[in-house]
């Protein structure tokens, strides 16, 4: 448990060399199994940061290391494979592949990552367990994802992000489409499942009221 899940150092990113930097982050660390609340106004570079952690973008300066491995030293396809093996994502909405069933959506990471498939002995059973833990009606499992309500979809997305116990879970405003009463419930369920999976969590939100649920919090400046 010595290596931090995420270590960011002197990060700077801009889309074009002529632009101003849209993201600057001197230092940030998320230890294994810990949770970070990330907030900031629109345009503060939250999405960019998530793309950088996901290894889809590379910074102009500085480095992002996941589990002690600097992403900048990996090839693009190695970063894709690393993402499949060690990261789980939940986005604001439209997380699911609409034509796949709920169960198939949750099992997707196990198809892309042999490591995550190995880490669960019985993928379908694990998917059921996760969905039950996230309070989803088991009767929905065989339904196409497109038929679910937004709240249900977000819970399916959470189960998918957590299957195979990835070391890092990234949630990009996953509660913004939910009504206020359910937001807290969702965050609590998500964090408790993440704790069980041993995943470090980066949670992005505008809603500062949620910050209290997390181990640490970080503000990005505009």
């Amino acid at each position, binding site marked *: 448990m010595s290596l931090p899940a995420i270590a960011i150092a002197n990060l700077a990113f801009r889309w074009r060399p002529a632009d101003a930097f849209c993201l600057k982050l001197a230092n940030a660390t998320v230890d294994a199994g810990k949770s970070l609340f990330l907030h900031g106004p629109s345009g503060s570079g939250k999405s960019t940061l998530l793309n950088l952690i996901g290894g889809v973008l590379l910074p102009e300066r500085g480095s992002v290391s996941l589990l002690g491995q600097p992403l900048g030293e990996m090839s693009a396809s190695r970063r894709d494979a690393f993402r499949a093996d060690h990261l789980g994502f939940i986005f604001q909405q439209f997380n699911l592949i609409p034509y796949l069933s709920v169960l198939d959506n949750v099992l997707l990471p196990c198809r*892309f990552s042999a490591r995550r498939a190995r880490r669960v002995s019985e993928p379908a059973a694990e998917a059921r367990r996760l969905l039950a833990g996230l309070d989803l009606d088991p009767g929905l499992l065989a339904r196409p994802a497109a038929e679910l309500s937004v709240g249900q979809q977000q819970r399916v997305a959470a189960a998918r992000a957590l299957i195979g116990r990835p070391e890092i879970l990234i949630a990009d405003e996953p509660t913004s489409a939910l009504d206020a009463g359910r937001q807290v419930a969702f965050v609590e369920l998500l964090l408790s499942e993440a704790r069980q999976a041993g995943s470090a969590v980066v949670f992005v939100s505008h809603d500062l009221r949620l910050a209290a649920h997390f181990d640490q919090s970080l503000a990005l400046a505009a």
Partner: protein
Amino acid sequence: MKPLLLIALKSAWNRRLTLGLTLLAITLAVMLLLSGERIRQAARDGFAQSVSGTDLIVGARGSPLQLVLYAVFQVGEASHNIDWQSYQAIAADPAVAWSVPLTLGDSHRGFPVLGTTPAYFEHYRYGDRQPLRLTAGQHFNGLFDAVIGAEVAVKLGYRLGERITLSHGSGQLPGLAHADKPFTVAGILAPTGTPVDRRVHVSLAAIEAIHLDWQGGAPITGVSIPADVVSKFDLQPKTITAFLLGLHQRSAVFRLQRRIADFHAEPLLAVLPGVALDQLWQTVGVVEKALLGISWLVFAVGLAGLAAVMLASLSERRRELAVLRSIGAGPRHILFLLILESLLVTLLGVLLSLGLVSSAAWLGGPWLAAQFGLSTLPLAVSPGELRLLAGIFAAALLVSLWPAWRAYRLSLADGLIPRL
């Protein structure tokens, strides 16, 4: 790549309506290409086998194409006739197994009249060495008996026993009918899809008989020999137009051809029908190329439809692709996914059209063969068709690269969060 295959299939199924329409367009286009190719081949084969089993066609010296045109297709005319003695001399050559004399020059309501001998019905072959078959009646027995081809019977509505009169020449000039010596339809031939169908066959003696009171292409004024007395005359022909030869051994064909070319009594020409027909086909081959060109154009339209559908679907699939990216798919997976989809549609289209074309050939082949003189439509895939199919796949792959490349660029630009 295996999980992608499943996703590609399910994703395609999810968009089955638009893809189905694209599949229809591709299937129809490939069908057009395939059936065009098969009909072309069958037409070429059928044409090359308008007459088969005949080793040499002999006529007066001139152009080989002209000889084939008048002897096989009854198009145009011979520049000279052949002396009966010359015919007899060559027919007696030890290499010759059989010979069929042909006399042309008369017609019946636009259909050519062919004077010949019963040997014609015995030795004439077409297509895959098929003999002529009668659907009704018999070969000519009486002097004024005629055996008509299938098309003549159908077009003119003739049945056995019908009385017909022949016209001199192509029948365009009035007053040049052999009205005084009518013929009786004694037999009707089965359809062959070859020029045989358009022929009115009569005996050489009958041709001689109707011209007894003629000279220089017109009736002799004041002379009329009634039909019932012609048998008292010598009806041995003096000249014929051409003749067909069958040899004991095919290997002797070039030696005999040379002997005929060197024939001392008059200038003659012998051609191998297969070679000459092939030459003739080359000259009409432009049409065939134009057809193929049109088929490819239709296929290009089908491919453009495929590309349009794929490009249009990209906007609705952008989120789907971003989700796949977040789960660990690389841009090359996205590229693969889209190419796979268009190749799948193309493959399905090709298989469907192969099935449809083959079953159409199987069901409608015999009818087409009889109607249009195509040789039997091939059921199996020919090497030429394999090349065609390879071309179809290469074209589909090339076209699908465009939307796939766009999806690749989009997924690189979008990263994990599509900016819509």
